[in-house]
């Protein structure tokens, strides 16, 4: 199976190359046989990549340490689940995983478009196949997971302990599903540019794919934050590390696209802009991969420096040049007769929303690259860490939050003063009330105060929109409000799913603002010692050391501290934190010691305890951090994902309903275009 897998990789490369060649040729020569051959070759590529993946999984599960990848990332005593997830734990395996997802996505895109978008599909297949050729060539020639060692070691090195975490088992697949998901819209954009069919057809084909990519990217980012929080032990969930930033860039651009696509759908505007966003999301995904794998920017998350970085850089340059050429030579085709009836309209709000989203993406990219720019210009190495990103991005984030509240309140086309007054009166009153109340109760940190004030605005906006919709159904159909709510969402999933996403955004922002009230304490405790510290809420916490314990379990040697905790004199449980030294099957240490954080979580705050070191026999050095509102980050992330699912969920009866209304109206007034009864 392993040999079959290895060979399949090469066959997959050839298949993809064939698919790219005949698809473009078929599209150009309008030869259906070549087009069909290209599509079949892409399906065959999927089969070959699946075989290659099964080959690698077989090698991992059978502990074939003659294969360098297996010896580098697993050991005989590695738990089975992590032996399976080691597939994407290293460079070459993760590239194969990327190729696997891309070939699955490509096959789904072909299958779902087998009777639609036929003019575009040859170029879509060709573009997808070209991207696959790049990945498969990189794997085969630059980072082959089936590369063999000259000798067979008795055991492998094992998987980095920080990757032996459930979060890390599922975070990378989600992130890859998000990253790779941007390839399908990109392929459609290239096809539309090549064929000059830049009408709404290609846009309709990519919306769901862009949503899918956004959904997985969101889930991947939130899971990554959770993993960093519980596993790395530094006390936070976002460090503005270059690799974290790289995951945020396509997310921001994709989010901008999902808003601006509505403007093109409704008003036929922003055609150039939408193509640019789709292409940029893909290029930024590749850029993120380049950062992770090139070693060009120092990051705690990166794979080690390897030659594939150059491959990615070259691919990125070629992709930028090709897409820039295509867009610049098709500007006339992308021209739309844009008309704006008022500067105070939903369209205008979306434009500013896009500007801020792309502005944040630019500032994150700029900060990530600034050390390189600085070194190139001044020859001076600098560090661009969280203080820089917070300084630049907090104002932009607050502006975005404000727009999230304002946008939905403004009508399409033109908002009248009376309409604005009616829409804004409740949300603005609520926002001002919350701002004043929070200030009165001692929240004087300006970004946090603005965050809660704007959050209140958005929250009230959402509540108002739901209330109006539910109330309208209640009045029209006599439905009880409890019944009307789910029906309202089900009848307009795009709109109300979007509001659920906005709700998630508010919750996440509120949680981020909680960090302004973080408290950290650095304690040294002998067995039986206790220390008292005070959190941001004014509670007095006592930590009593029960002493250090040392024991072996599974594939690790553990040093642990147990702390008896009480809050305001009342028992609040026991918190333990560990340092783990992982060992191979012969008991030899494999990696640097890793942290196992002790977390006592509540909706109010997390008590986060890290065993930082042991001095002498029994003196534990611990860090206690009170992290307010962290649980709300995960809750907000879940809400965003749920909202994304609601938006994505197919609306099966939409066409039937509309045609039904049209049929009702037809005898007297047959409209040329069926009115959009379900608008976002």
């Amino acid at each position, binding site marked *: 199976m392993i040999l079959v897998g290895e060979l399949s990789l090469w066959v997959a490369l050839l298949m993809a190359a064939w698919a790219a060649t005949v698809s473009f040729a078929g599209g150009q020569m309008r030869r259906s046989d070549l087009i069909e051959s290209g599509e079949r070759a892409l399906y065959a590529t999927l089969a070959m990549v699946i075989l290659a993946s099964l080959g690698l999984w077989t090698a991992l599960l059978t502990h074939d340490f003659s294969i360098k990848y297996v010896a580098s990332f697993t050991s005989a005593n590695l738990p089975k689940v992590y032996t399976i997830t080691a597939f994407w734990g290293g460079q070459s395996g993760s590239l194969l995983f990327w190729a696997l997802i891309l070939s699955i996505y490509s096959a789904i895109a072909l299958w779902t478009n087998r009777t639609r978008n036929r003019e575009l599909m040859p170029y879509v297949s060709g573009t997808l196949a070209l991207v696959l050729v790049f990945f498969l060539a990189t794997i085969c020639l630059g980072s082959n997971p089936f590369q063999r060692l000259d000798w067979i070691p008795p055991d492998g090195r094992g998987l980095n302990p920080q990757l032996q975490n459930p979060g890390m088992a599922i975070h990378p697949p989600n992130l890859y599903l998000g990253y790779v998901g941007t390839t399908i819209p990109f392929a459609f954009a290239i096809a539309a540019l090549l064929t000059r069919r830049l009408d709404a057809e290609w846009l309709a084909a990519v919306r769901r794919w862009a949503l899918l990519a956004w959904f997985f990217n969101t889930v991947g980012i939130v899971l990554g934050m959770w993993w960093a929080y519980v596993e790395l032990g530094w006390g936070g969930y976002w460090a503005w590390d270059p690799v974290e930033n790289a995951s945020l860039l396509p997310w921001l651009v994709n989010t901008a696209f999902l808003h601006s696509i509505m403007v093109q759908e409704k008003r036929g505007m922003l055609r150039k802009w939408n193509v640019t966003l789709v292409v940029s999301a893909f290029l930024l995904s590749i850029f993120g991969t380049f950062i992770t794998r090139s070693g060009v920017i120092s990051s*705690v998350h990166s794979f080690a420096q390897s030659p594939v970085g150059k491959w990615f850089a070259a691919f990125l340059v070629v992709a930028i040049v090709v897409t820039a050429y295509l867009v610049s030579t098709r500007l006339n085709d992308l021209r739309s007769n844009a008309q704006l009836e008022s500067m105070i309209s939903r369209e205008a709000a979306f434009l500013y929303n896009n500007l801020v989203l792309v502005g944040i993406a630019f500032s994150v990219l700029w900060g990530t690259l600034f050390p390189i720019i600085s070194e190139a210009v001044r020859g001076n190495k600098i560090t661009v860490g969280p203080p820089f990103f917070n300084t630049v991005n907090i104002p932009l984030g607050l502006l975005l939050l404000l727009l999230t509240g304002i946008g939905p309140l403004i009508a399409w086309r033109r908002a009248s003063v009376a309409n604005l007054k009616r829409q804004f009166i409740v949300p603005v009153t609520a926002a001002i009330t919350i701002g004043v109340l929070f200030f009165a109760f001692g929240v004087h940190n300006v970004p946090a105060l603005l965050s809660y004030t704007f959050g209140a605005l958005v929250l009230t906006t959402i509540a108002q929109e739901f209330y109006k919709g539910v109330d309208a159904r209640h009045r029209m159909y006599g439905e009880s409000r409890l019944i009307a709510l789910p*029906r309202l969402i089900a009848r307009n999933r795009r709109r109300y799913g979007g509001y659920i996403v906005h709700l998630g955004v508010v919750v996440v922002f509120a949680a981020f603002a909680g960090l302004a009230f973080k408290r950290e304490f650095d304690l040294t405790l002998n067995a039986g010692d206790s220390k008292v510290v005070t959190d941001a809420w004014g509670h007095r916490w006592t930590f009593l050391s029960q002493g250090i314990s040392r024991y072996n379990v599974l594939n690790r040697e553990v040093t642990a501290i147990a702390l008896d905790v009480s809050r305001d004199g009342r028992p609040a449980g026991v918190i333990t934190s560990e340092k783990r030294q992982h060992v191979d099957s012969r008991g030899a240490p494999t990696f*640097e010691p890793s942290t196992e954080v002790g977390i006592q979580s509540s909706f109010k705050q997390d008590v986060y305890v890290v065993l930082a070191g042991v001095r002498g026999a029994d003196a534990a050095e611990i860090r206690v951090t009170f992290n307010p509102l962290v649980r709300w980050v995960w809750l907000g992330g879940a809400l965003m994902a749920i909202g994304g699912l609601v938006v994505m969920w197919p609306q099966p009866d939409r066409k039937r309903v509309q045609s039904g209304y049209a049929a009702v109206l037809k005898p007297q007034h047959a409209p040329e275009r069926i009115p959009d009864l379900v608008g976002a």
Partner: protein
Amino acid sequence: MSRRPAGSPGQTLITRRSFLLAIPALGLSAAAFPRRIRAAQVAVQTFNGPMAAAGDVYRPVTLPPNDGAKPSMTDAQRDDLEHQIHCQCGCNLDVYTCRTTDFACSVSPAMHSDVMGLVAGGHTASEILAAFKAVYGEKVLMAPVRSGFNLLGYTVPFIALGAGAVVVTALMRRWKSRAPMAATVPTSHVDATEGELAALDAAVRKDR
């Protein structure tokens, strides 16, 4: 979609059968030739490289104590200061976070000792940061100082956003000038007879 080629009768075509037969041969030959390339692959490390040892990267940072020196700040202020100093072990964390997180790091405790010595010597936060910068260079600061070229780093995102806002506003003005003076379609007016509206309402009710 037609399975037959659209080319001329004499045209040589690749049949599905010949294509499928050719694949294994191509695969095998391709698998054979790149051994040379594969042998030249550079050995790559795992997820995180080993951190630097203190001896490799640590440089002592000292200043003579001020006359009659008293500690210049509280422990909490000192911890805040350490959040502004970048640990040099390769971890991307600040000194405080690294020393209170990483069991194995020998660099951050050494840098922490230097901070403690400078605090005990009565030096202010800015003097301590300057001393670290003099020894390690600007990279020891968690964020670039806001002067000279670094100002670009802080201002370019806002300049870009401002420029973007100007462009967007100009574009919207242009689009607005194209629009007919017609907010002529009254938003509340529905172009349908009473009978049509009643029929539509009935259809909506039925569809529920």
